[in-house]
């Protein structure tokens, strides 16, 4: 402990000679190394937006920043909340001006692997392109930024921390705080939302034969059976057919009609939610939506593109019936007879025991560490462990040195966000002293996910 004390005081002494002298920050480009669960392929990353630690840190702030809405009330995280596996718990999302979205906010679990973003839009082929939709869409208004791009950029330019984060992520150009760089940074952060440390994964990778309960094991056999057919649309490591990864030349996207509606007996879905048809206008595309990942389902209720099924039990009942019958109201109709319904939604019968087994299997796809990982959390809430650069609840000497480097400007702020408790984009002597105190006294925090 005494050597630590000496080092701690030493770094502060050295730092105090330099702090305040740091120049305009330099672009850092620290390469980001994906920490992938066993069995996961490397995500595709656009050639013009390589992953860097600096872009991810910047993107994390932008993702959680309510200045990214026209009226300052919402951020991306308003509808994509970490504790709900980046959904919002609502049947249909509500935008910054109160307009109700026809669709339910999608989970961002493993969104780096998605081939088409959103529920039913084959045109949204990258997270960068997709980000423009919630920002600028007007029907419905989501973040409500259409026509307000200069206002948005001015808000960010006035922020000291953003001045540094943008410079370290994108260089010192005067126009570094730009729309293009904003979406690149947000997309980079979103590509780190990787979840694959579940009982299922631990079991299937052979790491622990007891990770899966017997009930869940038998539920898995049902899930992957031709009797239930679940796996056709929800197969593969991400439990969706719409995935790709680095090195895969094919970007497969699967849109399916699962028989939720059949308003006119000819297959129609509610006019504001016609699915793929809305984009392609091909009649057979009526009611076709992307089969989303089934990971983290316990956190993402309610279900379906319009949030119209409240519980997982209800979802199983829906597929068991081979479609949904609505008896009255404007959307009445027998969805099981929808002419465009997927061949795999044929219906099946389950005993109560089997249903519980299937539920147990689906819950074995939950990743509690993902929904509590501090590295994915709101960075505007200061991490109590000052200079705990790795968010593992322990401040090491290496991390203290890293914090000093951030203070001196020889290391990017992204390398140690917790060291800047004040949020002013720098690390002051006071903040370094706090860090040393934490290093000496320990920090009452649970370590990060892995």
């Amino acid at each position, binding site marked *: 402990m005494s050597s630590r004390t000496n080092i701690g005081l030493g770094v502060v002494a050295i730092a105090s000679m330099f702090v305040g002298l740091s120049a305009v920050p330099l672009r850092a480009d620290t390469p980001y190394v994906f920490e992938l669960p066993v069995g996961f392929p490397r995500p595709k990353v656009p050639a013009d937006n390589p992953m860097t630690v600096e872009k991810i840190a910047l993107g994390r702030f932008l993702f959680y920043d309510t200045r990214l809405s026209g009226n300052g009330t919402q951020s991306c995280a308003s509808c994509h909340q970490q504790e709900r596996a980046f959904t919002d718990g609502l049947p249909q999302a509500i935008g910054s001006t109160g307009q109700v979205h026809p669709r339910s906010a999608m989970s961002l679990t493993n969104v780096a692997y998605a081939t088409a973003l959103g529920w039913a839009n084959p045109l949204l082929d990258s997270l960068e*392109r997709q980000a423009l939709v919630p920002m*600028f869409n007007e029907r419905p208004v989501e973040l409500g930024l*259409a026509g307000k791009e200069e206002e948005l950029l001015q808000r960010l330019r006035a922020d000291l921390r953003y001045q540094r984060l943008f410079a370290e992520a994108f260089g010192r150009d005067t126009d570094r705080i730009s729309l293009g760089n*904003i979406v690149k940074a947000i997309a980079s952060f979103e590509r780190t939302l990787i979840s694959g440390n579940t009982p299922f994964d631990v079991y299937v990778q052979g790491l622990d034969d007891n990770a899966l309960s017997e009930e869940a094991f038998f539920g898995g056999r049902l899930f992957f059976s031709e009797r239930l057919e679940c796996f056709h649309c929800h197969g593969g490591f991400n439990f969706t057919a719409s995935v790709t990864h680095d090195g895969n030349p094919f970007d497969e996207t699967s849109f399916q009609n699962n028989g939720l509606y059949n308003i006119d007996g000819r297959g129609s879905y509610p*006019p504001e939610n016609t699915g793929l048809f809305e*984009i*392609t206008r091909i009649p057979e595309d009526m009611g076709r939506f992307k089969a989303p990942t089934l990971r983290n389902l316990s956190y993402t209720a309610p279900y379906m593109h319009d949030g119209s099924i409240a519980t997982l039990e209800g979802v199983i009942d829906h597929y068991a019936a081979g479609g949904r019958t609505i008896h009255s109201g404007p959307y009445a109709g027998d969805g099981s007879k929808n002419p465009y319904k997927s061949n795999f939604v044929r219906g099946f019968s389950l005993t109560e025991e089997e249903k519980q087994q299937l539920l147990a299997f689906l819950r074995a796809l939950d990743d509690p560490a993902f929904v509590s990982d501090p590295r994915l959390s709101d960075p505007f809430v200061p991490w109590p462990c000052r200079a705990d650069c790795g968010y593992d609840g322990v401040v090491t000497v290496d991390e203290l040195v890293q914090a000093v480097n951030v203070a001196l400007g020889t290391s990017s702020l992204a390398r140690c966000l917790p060291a800047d408790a004040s949020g002013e984009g720098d690390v002051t002597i006071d903040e370094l002293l706090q860090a040393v105190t934490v290093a000496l006294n320990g920090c009452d925090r649970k370590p990060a996910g892995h």
Partner: protein
Amino acid sequence: MKSNSCKQQVVPWMLVAVLALGCVGEAAAQSSRFDSLGQCVGDRDGNGQVTVDELVTGVNNLLEGCGYQPVTIQFAGYVGEEPFQCGQSYSGIGTSAQEFVPSDFRFYVSNVRLITTDDREIPVLLDQDGIWQLEDIALLDFENKTPPCVNGTVQTNSTVRGRVAPGNYNGIRFVLGVPLRRNHGDASVAPPPLSLTAMFWSWQAGYKFLRVDTAFDNYRIHLGSTGCFYAQPGVIGGCARPNRAEVVLRPFDPAHDMIVADLASLLSDSDLAENQAGTPPGCMSDPGDGDCNVLFRNLGVDFATGLPVPGLQKFFRVMRSHP
């Protein structure tokens, strides 16, 4: 031609290499031998060969200029007989003679051509001003951000400026819309005037060609391509309904006439008090929204196919500005 002797001494050295290599062949497809329109550079008649004559003409043009003349095409936003103004109330609009207050009025034009008296279409080469004009695309913008035009810009633009070859012109032709090659790029880094987020149409991966908003029950007209699809990963190959209008106005004299874009005329066959159930007020180019039908007709676009029918349009008309 009296100075040709000196040029012809210079020219062959430049020529030999170009002519020897030719403009055909696989490697050539990606080389600087082709200009942005895919034309072999210097191959004026498009036969794949750059002849000595073509090159001599090109070098003469290089040395002496082509004699392009500046041209300014004046546009004006109107509602009936009155100039467009943000927030002004206009009455008698549409079949049920409604009163409405416009809150946005902008559109892109592209591929502007002047028509000669002998029916040839000569392209106007737009000044690349870094604001309103990019390549062959220009944004006309009549709103000035005064309420209720709050999502607009203070700057306005009512002209298309460029150069055109000398000639006897008595007509004009242009496209209402952004051309395919520029409609589906990365909007987040697009140069002006494709950088305006109010004109982004991100859910269709394109731009709004025409934007008319009103304070009348949120009645809006957003024209743009729909049913777009990828030809290969990352490259949108086309759209089922391009929804670009081809506008032909004749007679038109750029020196004395201006082009009036008239919202009352556009809306003359619409009933603003009616709206098809399950669709937004106005028209967002949704092929399922029957309210678009008459609007598209008045723009000169066939609603069923999204293809232009120039003779139908009533939105634009010519008005004498300088007698």
